[in-house]
């Protein structure tokens, strides 16, 4: 749902499996998140992540420069995933409670 709105998280996640250049990032993100980022969106997020020191370019002779996670980037990804995990756990628990027998009647009363 909201994954398209968080290109930095998608990029950090993609780079967690190793350095990649722009095109490889787009293919990987489409593969694991089913999200097709636009090229402008991708490079906007890359610029922001590099500015914050979360990713860095790898030496390259061609025009397609690969990027990799920095230590700060790895920590930021870990922290973002922990936050997401909290929401996932809470959402899952609430959904289970919602689906329990008798909960439908309580919802009607409320």
């Amino acid at each position, binding site marked *: 749902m909201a994954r398209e709105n968080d290109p930095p998280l998608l990029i950090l996640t993609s780079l967690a499996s190793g350095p990649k250049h*722009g095109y490889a990032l787009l293919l990987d993100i489409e593969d694991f998140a089913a999200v097709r980022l636009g090229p402008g969106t991708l490079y906007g997020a890359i610029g922001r992540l590099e500015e914050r*020191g979360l990713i860095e370019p790898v030496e390259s002779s061609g025009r*397609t420069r690969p990027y990799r996670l920095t230590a700060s980037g790895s920590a930021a990804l870990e922290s973002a995933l922990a936050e997401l995990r909290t929401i996932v756990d809470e959402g899952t628990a609430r959904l289970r409670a919602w689906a329990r027998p008798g909960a439908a009647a309580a919802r009607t009363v409320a």
Partner: protein
Amino acid sequence: MGETGRGRGTDGRVRLLRVYPAAWRARYGDELVALLEDLDGAARMSWRVRLDVVRAGLGERARVLVLGGGAPRERVRRGSVLVLYAWMLFVLGGFGVQKASEHWQAATPSGERTLPALGFDVLVVVAALGSVLVLLGVAVALPALAGLVRRGGWRTIRLPILVAVALSVSTVVATVGLAAWAHSLTAAARNGHDASYAGVFVGWVVLVAACLFAWAAAASATARRISFSLRQLRLEAGLAAATSAAMVVMTLAAAVWWGAVASAAPWFFEGRPAGAAASPLVANVIVPVAVMVCATALALAGATRALRALPALADGSG
């Protein structure tokens, strides 16, 4: 960006990237063109891709406009200097309000002076506080300035500082002369009924404005050449934010004063007798208040740039 081996399709992609700021293109332009080639090959770019690039490019331009672009240190420096320029502009507006408000108490019924007096007092007290904040900002930069002078950098900042000093001396001489002349005139003559005095007064305002902006330009030129420590940059950003907040308070206080006098004694603004029908919307108040509002908006933009660059400074990426 490199120019070799480009076909018509690539030229089109390069043209599309003009929507980005030049500094951004210099850093990421080649990579983005290579990505666009990988995406569409020799085929025409899809509208989806074009729109995404244009939207992102305009976003980068807007970001540079708001944040100032460049490294975090540079953004703090530029943001703080913008606040300094805004303060100088604000001082000019403040002079105008001060001039337009002369003798407002005499024209306002005694029972209705409380609110305008409160607005005016807040304006005066916060103006003094704001001046102290600006001087503190200068004081924070003094050790770095002394270092620059010791390293022989005086010649790089000499010209703007000498121009500012010369304009300051001229302003002091002109102010003394104008004040002596004003004392020999009636209040009516001082307030626009003497054409020659009015002309010289406008010239004096221009001289004061030139003096203020010469000092701001000298500070800007100096700040470009000295290297601030992280602590000094944080202090400058904090002082810039506090100065901007002071300008917001002063603008509101001026509006309160204006509104309260307009309600209690609208005849004051047109210099008419008490009780006469008159409009408080006169140019000699509208213009300075508008200048104060514009200066406050500029200061807030500058302070925002400086403050938003601080987290990146803390990360050590500045």
